[in-house]
């Protein structure tokens, strides 16, 4: 079965002042798959993600999301596109002036006409999905790094978006929480048919959830393809990354 392309990036170029971060990045992501973006820290993963979100002006190349060319979008069309996306930022980016619950409720109260009681139920349930129901009344400043990430994920999925972007969701999580987070991601994919773009370094996570790998190295895509092929890639950076598998027990998870 041929899957539908939901993200297509062609020859993307990005730079900050004199620092070139991305030089000719191309890849695609497909409907209903988990696409994992890999790369050393500082390799430009977050920068790439923010370009996909239309947060930076495109300096060179082309990005199309859900069939729409980002550079051609008018403001209303961009907002319409945002309604179909949920984003978990690397910093969490919860609004510091609102409680965790109010943060998750924000998209719901701004974009739907649901009654407040129902919104609070939905918020509670979404926080429960990430095991954060107990933090309902807390402010973001009162949360640890891992808790922040989970609360931010609850906000990202508040509206059941068809397209989800997550920047290092597993950073700061213990292995058990990480596993339940991965399970949630799989559930979102399998049961809601969500398409997910994930930036992560967690090897066990990648093995559990990834359908497709995009490996960034020196501003270019060193590897793009299914997880199984990635593990046998001859590219030095890619094989170095996956070589950890050869020493670790996680190998068993591969099958």
């Amino acid at each position: 079965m041929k899957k539908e392309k939901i993200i297509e990036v062609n020859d993307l170029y990005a730079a900050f002042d004199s620092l070139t971060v991305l030089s000719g990045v191309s890849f695609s992501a497909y409907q209903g798959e988990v696409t994992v973006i890999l790369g050393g820290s500082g390799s430009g993963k977050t920068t790439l993600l923010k370009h996909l979100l239309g947060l930076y002006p495109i300096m060179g190349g082309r990005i199309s999301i859900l069939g729409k060319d980002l550079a051609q979008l008018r403001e209303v069309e961009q907002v319409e596109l945002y309604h179909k996306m949920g984003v978990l930022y690397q910093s969490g980016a919860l609004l510091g002036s609102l409680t965790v619950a109010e943060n998750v409720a924000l998209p719901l109260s701004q974009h739907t006409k649901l009654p407040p009681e129902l919104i609070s139920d939905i918020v509670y349930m979404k926080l429960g999905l990430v095991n954060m129901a107990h933090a309902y009344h807390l402010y973001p400043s009162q949360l640890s790094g891992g808790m922040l990430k989970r609360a931010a994920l609850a906000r990202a999925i508040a509206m059941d978006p068809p397209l989800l972007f997550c920047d290092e969701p597993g950073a700061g999580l213990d292995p058990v929480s990480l596993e339940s987070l991965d399970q949630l991601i799989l559930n979102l994919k399998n049961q809601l048919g969500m398409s997910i773009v994930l930036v992560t370094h967690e090897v066990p996570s990648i093995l559990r959830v990834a359908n497709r790998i995009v490996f960034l190295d020196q501003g270019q895509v060193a590897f793009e393809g299914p997880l199984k092929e990635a593990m046998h890639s001859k590219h030095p950076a890619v094989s170095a990354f996956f070589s950890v598998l050869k020493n670790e027990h996680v190998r068993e998870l591969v099958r």
Partner: protein
Amino acid sequence: MAKKKTDQDVLFSLGEQLKLRVEGRVISPEGRLNFEEAGNFTLLVPRIIRGRKLRHVQISLADIKQIDSAGVMALYHVQRTMARRRISVELVNTPVSVEEKMLLFTTKDQLPERLTVQGGFLERTGEVVHHFFSSYIFGFLLLASNIFYWSFADLFRSSARRKGEVVNQSVLIGVNAVPIVVFLSFVIGFVIALQSSGQLKSFGANIFVVDLVVISIMSQMGPLITAILIAGRSGSAIAAEIATMKVTAELDALKTMGLNPNRFVIVPKLYACMLTMPFLIVLANVAGMTGGGLAANLYLDITPEIFMNRMGDIMRNKDLFTALIKSQVYAALIVLTGSFYGLRVERGAEGVGRVTTVAVVVSITLVILADSILGIVFY
């Protein structure tokens, strides 16, 4: 909500995507139970149940074509609220596709109470000038036009605003500044009267102290002191808050949630500042004249009655009007400058401190420049 009566069952159509068929004690939602329809669903179903005085209700899910998290929660919500009235609601005929979603979106625990570049000299100079215009002046005007657009557009559209945010900001920007504004204006009024008392006394022109105090406070010092204090207090706070939000990607998050950060964050502050500034200026004027009156009484033997009488003769309505105009101009300058510098923050926490300082210096400078210009215009 249209009702259509057939023999024994009734069809309610909720929105475009969902209909409710009611037969006896079985309610069958047909179509999509999603974010758009869930609200109506939770309102209408209890009404039907109560209207028909049902004790045991079955909701048949067989004809649900699509359901999302809001829909699942709507089902649970109905079940729970009805249970409180001892009405049992049973979910029946659940297709696998619906059941999957229901398993995914379950609430495990008890639900809580509700929420409330380098060239020669000329090139470099040219570049600096060009950079200054293109990035500062142009950027500032762009931001100002965007903010003004949204503040007019949203003026009578309360649904576009975050609930309570204007009040909240009014307290932060206006109410909390009252003590310092009153205190400083009082001291300045007192000092003006005191410093001039020696001169006036030697000419035997004691009574003119009233003119001096009233005119200087009303047309100059009151509005200016207020604006400088607000620029120091709130201009910095606004710059720091917005810079922090930018550094932590909160502004990006708002954008990708489909919310306009200018509209969501800056416009309420502008409203609050424009709303409270006139009142602060009135308070500053009263405090300043009280201070001046006290000094006149202590050093020039002018009784409060004489002071008040003379004050009535000197006060001009024009001063009140100019104070109002000034307050709006200062308020806009302070909020816009704070926001502009807040938005220009470079990455990192130390950038926040830097833009905050610059925002205060620039907004105080702009306030004083505006004061001089307005002083000439309204002379």
